[in-house]
């Protein structure tokens, strides 16, 4: 089946949820490795933190925060869908989750500036 059948908001929400989940799974070991640098000594961690000050790394952080927020709100939407009495307007909930994710990303970006 072509992607034409999949072109609807709740499928895109599924895809974002799945891909953000995979991205966060890949990120977590890297995150823990970074924290582990503190055990190796202050200099090692400071060296990494200086590297992380580069603009491209900062931009990646914003993307990561948006993905984390998207995964959080997408997960809450699915939990509500599965465990609470059904409510119509699922596409509105997808839109709300997307909007909140962007707001969180924007707040993080403003905090950086």
């Amino acid at each position: 089946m072509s992607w034409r059948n999949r072109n609807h908001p709740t499928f895109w929400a599924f895809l974002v949820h799945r891909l953000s989940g995979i991205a966060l799974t890949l990120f977590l070991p890297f995150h823990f490795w970074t924290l582990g640098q503190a055990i190796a000594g202050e200099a090692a961690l400071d060296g990494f933190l200086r590297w992380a000050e580069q603009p491209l790394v900062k931009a990646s952080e914003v993307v990561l925060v948006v993905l984390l927020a998207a995964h959080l709100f997408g997960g809450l939407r699915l939990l509500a869908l599965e465990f609470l009495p059904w409510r119509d307007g699922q596409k509105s909930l997808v839109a709300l989750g997307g909007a909140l994710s962007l707001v969180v990303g924007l707040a993080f970006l403003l905090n950086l500036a």
Partner: protein
Amino acid sequence: MPGQVDALTVSVWRGAAAGRYVDYQVPHRTSQTVLDIVTYIQRRLDPTLSYRFSCRVGVCGSCAMTVNGVPRWTCRTHVDRVAKDRKLEIGPLRNLPVIKDLATDMRAFFDKWARAKGQFQPPATPAADFARVDPASAARREADAAIECIGCAVCYSACDVVAWNPDYLGPAALNRAWSLVNDVRDAGGAERLAAVSGDAGCHSCHSHQACAERCPKQLNPTAAIAGLKRATLKAALTGAL
């Protein structure tokens, strides 16, 4: 020709699992349905074309096909709504074996209704009186919402989980099970919940909601499946499953 506006190029699947799309030129008329197009090809251009239809008015659920990549009931799909640049692509439903051209073998689809215990189960001893069902009760409203299915298999064809796991019961069978779970006269509840809670049952649903998106009757099998997930969880927690 009366009502003719222009010509359409229609690509139609010819063959079984192996086959190819063949182009036909079909007159485009006002208020024309996709089923009208297929019928025109079969009656005027190529009588060997195989397809399935019956009522032509959206009741029987026979004429579903894949139109421009999306499963639809063809008798009530207007060409003007789906044709792009005067082109149409018409294929058989996905997730079902193709017998020939646009006709699919629906046995697996209906067998799954039986596997999901989709038949009404009366109590062992006949009820002494008529069941008094309040139409406004929550359970009856749930059953009413699910009961209008015409068995067209559009949802089954739209579902990616069926494509990934051919054993998955699918939206229509689970929707039917949910209508019976909410029928106070039915006595097959525990058996039915066991039937729909296996690896190929309701918990396999990823909530893509393609079934609800594509259902021509605007039913919501995803809501029914979510209801089954809650009912099976409750039954498991209370030891009933």
